């Protein structure tokens, strides 16, 4: 058999699946977002009309879209740094020469990553229950008045951020830990002989060495956090007062609850656009810093 043909035969199953069930739908989605595909079109294809950019135009004039985008940005801008700090902090602890039982701690801290979002979100809803949740019980004991986590629009999103940090920080912790272990120890040795403090060692050896990894991990985490959906779906159902409606939640509601598939597709592409812009900006910013260092 011709080797070229063999290679394409090897590729065929995977490329077929990715082409038919991913690339094709993505292109179709772009088309769909330019139509008024709704319940009537779902029933009878002849009701479908081409509307140009009307879906996008309408969305940009709808307060709920901006609210959803705002909630998602809030979640990303506060949640990602918190999550990265938790990852870096625990990775540094695990990498400390004084740390004992490292494999045990590493596994335990990583455990939430492999759990099912829906299942642990159900736990979270119970932990943060206003009446009989453990969190408020502990707060009351510390002399802090109980917080209406699930009913107060100011507190629902922070609660979801805490959830996301708890669920996800272990992933980046493992990657950062590998990065820390790759830093040659004689660098620290030399710094210690020069009398550099722990903070200065961190600032001038650890941080510069980790910068490329931090950048990559940061970008991946940002794109992951933009896709917020299951958490508000299970914990708050988008409430209270729609304060936890994310962009994807809006897409799901529009598309699969109200069957406004055209509008929902436009929401999806706007999210893609925002994500692309945010991660591209991080790249540019990160590369500039790396060149300076």
């Amino acid at each position, binding site marked *: 058999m011709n080797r070229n043909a063999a290679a394409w035969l090897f590729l065929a199953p*995977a490329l077929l*699946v990715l082409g038919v069930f991913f690339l094709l739908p993505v292109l179709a989605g772009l088309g769909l977002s330019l139509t008024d595909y709704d319940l009537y079109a779902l029933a009878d294809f002849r009701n479908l009309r081409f509307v140009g950019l009307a879906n996008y135009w309408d969305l940009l004039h709808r307060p709920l879209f901006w609210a959803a985008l705002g909630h998602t940005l809030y979640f990303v801008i506060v949640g990602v740094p918190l999550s990265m700090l938790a990852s870096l902090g625990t990775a540094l602890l695990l990498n400390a020469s004084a740390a004992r039982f490292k494999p045990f701690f590493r596994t335990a801290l990583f455990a939430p990553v492999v759990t099912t979002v829906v299942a642990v979100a159900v736990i979270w809803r119970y932990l943060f229950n206003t009446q009989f949740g453990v969190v408020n019980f502990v707060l009351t004991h510390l002399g802090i008045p109980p917080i209406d986590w699930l009913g107060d629009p100011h507190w629902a999103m922070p609660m979801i951020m805490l959830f996301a940090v708890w669920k996800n920080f272990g992933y980046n912790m*493992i990657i950062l830990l590998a990065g820390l272990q790759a830093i040659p120890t004689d660098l620290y040795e030399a710094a210690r002989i020069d009398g550099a403090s722990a903070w200065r060692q961190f600032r001038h050896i650890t941080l510069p060495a980790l910068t490329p990894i931090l950048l990559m991990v940061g970008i991946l985490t940002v794109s992951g956090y933009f896709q917020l959906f299951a958490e508000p779906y299970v914990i708050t159902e988008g409430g209270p007062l729609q304060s936890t409606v994310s962009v994807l939640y809006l897409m799901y509601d529009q598309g699969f609850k109200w069957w406004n598939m055209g509008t929902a597709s436009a929401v999806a592409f706007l999210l893609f656009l925002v994500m692309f812009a945010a991660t591209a900006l991080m790249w540019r910013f990160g590369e500039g810093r790396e060149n300076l260092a």
Partner: protein
Amino acid sequence: MKPRVHAWLVNGALVACTALVLFPLFWMLSVSFMQPGEANNLPPPMLPLHPTLANYRELFAHAGMGRYFANSLIISTSITLLSLACNTLAGYAFAKLRFAGREKTFGVLIGALVIPAQVAMLPLFLLLKYAGLINSYWAVILPAMASVFGIFLVRQYARGIPGELLEAARVDGAGELRIFIQVVLPLMKPILVTLAVFTFLVAWNDFMWPLIALTGQQHYTLPVGLASLSREHVQDSGLMMAGAVVTVIPVLALFLALQRYYLRGLLLGSVKG
């Protein structure tokens, strides 16, 4: 700082973080064994006074949990086996077979990684609906049968296979498929285990697409079934925690058993390039 004090601080911080991280999981387990209503006491009891399996019995007898469990198992296992086949073939071809358009095709796949999966979901739903596949196992299995991440992972690993080995087999007159099965596959066992664990966990935990594609209760996977139950039984904490335990324990156990393979995949997958 004195080294002893330093050691105490580091290990104390580790213990505190770990306790905080594991508490929700411990609490889930504890409450799942409590009597109905016991979990809604104040102060919340740390351990069940009279441990009972009542919540589990209720879940499997009346809430359809057995069905959801079977659905999850069928779907996740099928996805793992089928995608393993597709991704391994493709990953190996990208790494070791020379053909026109190789770099370009691979570049397109890697480029596609920036597109979030949700962008494809609406047309995918319509496509599968017109094909009559919505609300069947296939609606979830088909789109997951190949993944760029999986292909990438296999490619990274397969690049390490010495080319002389393949050339020698070719000189002996072996066909490409035979080389793949008899020479390449045995060498790739470790990465296949890694990819299998990864794929199974992702398939088992997946929520948004199954929620969209599985519209009837008889096909619900565990996460979809649990989310739907949790909307009906908001106040029944014991029952919900038992549901969480049933959903989480299989993946936690799988991870603990094959941790080494899983973490390697995580690190390999994060080194783009």
